[in-house]
């Protein structure tokens, strides 16, 4: 087990390095910590992991495992992947189909010239740790279920006690129930063995559940890194906020003597900051909906008037409302009890503590950033 330090890591693709996948990434993972890299597809998280593993050669930067430099572009050091002493769990498991589960797990030990007795002892131990029935070890991958295959892949990554264990979206091929089960298994394994881990995912709930710290990536850079609850409560940018489930309530512009809004009727306290225009984001579960004009006006809340219910869906113990805000659709999930119908005019309100204001930029949204119309409450 070792800590991991990455400094100014850069990787570009294309004939002239025109496509920058990883752009000056710097991070530290203390010993026994699990760091989760989260971000939309194409943000560079998998490339970062592949650089750490040695599957890609970065163009610049330094990578250190403990006190050992395993990559340094300026000193032309690049320890090949098989000598980095890592464990890697792949998205598609990457189990060798011609080998039994036992042989798959034994491979890292054989590569390190472990004795047969040592192999037997360690495979038995790791099978116990990952909750893998010993009888399954004699089967080939094709004879195992998806969950069992993933346990074999986990055992293979852990069996040689590598310095760093890396996970490249290991649960994305599983169904929802199995994904949740294995997610808590990985959490348990990490708490039990306390390995240093780097975990890549685009799934926010996975990142929150597994990470001691979470690094949010966009456009090849780490935009924010911190404990899951920090990212959740105080997202650094509107894109991170959207990744965390925040959705746009409205945009406001600084006028000569007051704030105005082009896409909604706005009332509420002005955001702190010198910018000329802001977008106000809130988590849908913190937005209150009421029939137009029924809520008591207050200066201590943000209020968006002029919403129209565009659709109502029944979800069992909750209901789903699609609210049209001047052409933008906002999906809200609200408790049953209040009856709304399409065409109803509504007001949306949120407390200032639940609102995040971000300066509006001219830069177009990344295509994979969750749009306001894909809201999950």
């Amino acid at each position, binding site marked *: 087990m070792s800590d991991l330090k990455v400094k100014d890591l850069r990787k570009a693709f294309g004939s002239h390095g025109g496509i920058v996948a990883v752009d000056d990434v710097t991070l530290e993972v203390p010993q026994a910590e699990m760091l989760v890299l989260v971000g939309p597809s194409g943000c560079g998280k998998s490339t970062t992991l592949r650089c750490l*593993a040695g599957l890609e050669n970065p163009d610049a930067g330094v990578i250190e495992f403990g006190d050992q430099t395993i990559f340094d572009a300026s000193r032309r050091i690049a320890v090949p992947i*098989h000598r980095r002493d890592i464990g890697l769990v792949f998205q598609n498991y990457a189990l*060798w189909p011609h080998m039994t589960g036992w042989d798959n797990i034994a*491979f890292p030990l054989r590569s390190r010239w472990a004795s047969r007795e040592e192999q037997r002892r360690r495979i038995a131990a790791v099978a116990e740790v990952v909750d893998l029935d010993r009888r399954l070890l004699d089967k080939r991958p094709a004879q195992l279920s998806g969950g069992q295959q993933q346990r074999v892949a986990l055992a293979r990554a852990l069996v*040689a006690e590598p310095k760093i264990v890396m996970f490249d979206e290991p649960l994305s091929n599983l169904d929802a129930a199995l994904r949740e089960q294995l997610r808590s298994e990985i959490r348990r394994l990490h708490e039990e063995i306390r390995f240093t881990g780097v975990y890549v995912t685009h799934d926010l709930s996975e990142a929150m559940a597994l990470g001691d710290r979470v690094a949010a990536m966009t456009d090849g850079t780490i935009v924010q890194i911190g404990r899951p609850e920090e990212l959740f409560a105080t997202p650094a940018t509107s894109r991170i906020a959207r990744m965390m489930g925040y959705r746009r309530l409205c945009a406001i512009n600084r006028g000569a003597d007051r704030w105005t809004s082009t896409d909604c009727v706005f009332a509420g306290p002005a955001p702190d900051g010198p910018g000329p225009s802001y977008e106000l984001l809130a988590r849908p579960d913190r937005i209150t909906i009421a029939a137009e004009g029924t809520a008591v006006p207050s200066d201590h809340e943000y209020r968006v008037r002029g919403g129209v219910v565009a659709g109502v869906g029944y979800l069992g113990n909750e209901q789903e409302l699609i609210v049209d805000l001047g052409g933008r659709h906002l999906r809200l999930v609200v408790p049953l009890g209040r009856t709304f119908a399409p065409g109803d005019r509504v007001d949306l309100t949120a407390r200032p503590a639940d609102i995040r204001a971000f300066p509006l930029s001219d830069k177009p949204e990344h295509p994979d950033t969750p749009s306001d119309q894909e809201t999950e409450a």
Partner: protein
Amino acid sequence: MHTTGTVASDEHSRTDVAHYQPTPRRRIGLVDRRTAQTAARRASALVLVAVVALLCLPPVYFVIDAALSGSGLGFRQMLQDRTLGRTVQITITLALGAVVISTVLGIVLAWGAQGLSRRNRWLGHIPLIPLVMPALAAVTGFGYLLNPSIGFGNLLLRKIMFWSGAETGPFDVNTVPFILIVTATLLTSFVYLFIRSALAQLDQGIYDAAAASGASPTRAFFTVILPMLRPAIVYSSLTVMLLALGQFAVPLFLGRQENLNVLSTAMYVSMSASPPNIPLAAAYGLPIVVAGIVFLVIQRVVLRDQDRFASTGTKGAARSLNKSGWLSHTALIVYGLVAVAAPIVSVAIVAFQPYWSKDIVISEFTFDNFRSVFANPRLVDAIGNTAVYSLSASAIAVPLGYLCAKVLYRRRQQRVIASIVDVLVSMSLGIPAVIFGVGFLLAFTHGPLNLYGRGAGLVAVYVVVTLPFITRMVLVGMVNLGDNLIEAGAACGGPLWRRILTLELPMLRPALGNAIAICLILTAQEFGASILVRSTQTQVMSTVLYDQFANGSNSQVAVMAFLMCAITGIGVLLALLFGRQSSPKES
């Protein structure tokens, strides 16, 4: 990673976990030079390029050199040849006609096979048989079948149809139309193979969407399926064009009687003259070399933008919605009877008859012809030589093909080297074997290595001729395998040699098995190059068969053809068994 003393929760602690001991650590070097790794990789790739270039380039160089020597003496002689016009005309007729017939027939058969029911799916393998069937056996079979006077097919037709009064015909295999039909029938397999593969890649949803939009099966086929197959059609028809341009065995065997030549046979005639007219032979061969290279370039250019023909979906191969399929059943069975069964049965009949006769009397069938073949030491030697040369060529060509495939698979890392390897390996695909035969003959007799008359010479020829097929087969295996499984081995700490020996090669076993099988089959049947490079000490089955044919020993020709079919059949069966046993299931 360690666990002792750091277990977070008591309820999760286990005895085995408590006994987790550190694994023996291998010493890890602190510094590795990227430049050294890259340089080593590049150096080994360059060595490979040098080896492949040494094998593939000299024959082409010597052909071009001989054609241009003496201020174009060969070309002057060729232009003075009064039969040149007729030769070029037959060559072009054969090439274009074969493309049209094979492409149409191949598409019809492939689409028909796509609609076969599960029970009758075996019928879909019939059009592939000519790929492994010895070409010489097929050609001699067609000769026995459609000989105008005593061909079994003609006899049958005369008996059951209205030509009963005639003494000859109705068909004459020794004419240009029948040389074309036989060539096209045999080359249909290539089109069928490529179109079948392309159809298997198509998503059924594509066809279903057309049908759901109201398109009849015919309209859906012509407006949706056929345009999607364009890359496969272009690739296969260009391949057929190349093979037909360099077609040697069919015109040599069937056109000999009427002195019908194509460029390749004219080249062979010039080389067999006494003394051999090398400049003239090279001049006949050069247009085929140029055409081959041009077609290879066209193939590359046309297929560059393949993405717009790729379909995405999950339902698997397109399949006809109405599965009546009687037409496809009939087409496949008729093709099987005409292209496979009829020539092989004809060969078998002549092999077992005391002598080739129009009267088929089963009670008179005898093994005498087989006995006389096995009593002839030349023929027995040829069988032994074929086995030794085929196995030796496979032992060299398969590892070489694997290395070439490896370079091509890692194209992103070594673009220039990969492109050179690609061109070198593809050369023998574009240039007919008979031209390589001439080139090798010149290289062996004029170059520094005198391999003429030695087995090593034939082995070198076989390596070059089979290299493109082996490389493509292994490359497809590598592409299907993907990177992840090998990367997983590296991530687990496996060094390169362990990754290759314990992961890559075992997982590539089906592809390697197929490559060995195709190598053995191709070399055991090889004729175009062997006929030029062989000597009296290095006869192989195909060359002995031709000598017997030239001497008019029909019975012994039939026995040799029959033996070639039997050996190939056994080889294919073994390959199928090997492939089935070794095919690891994907996880």
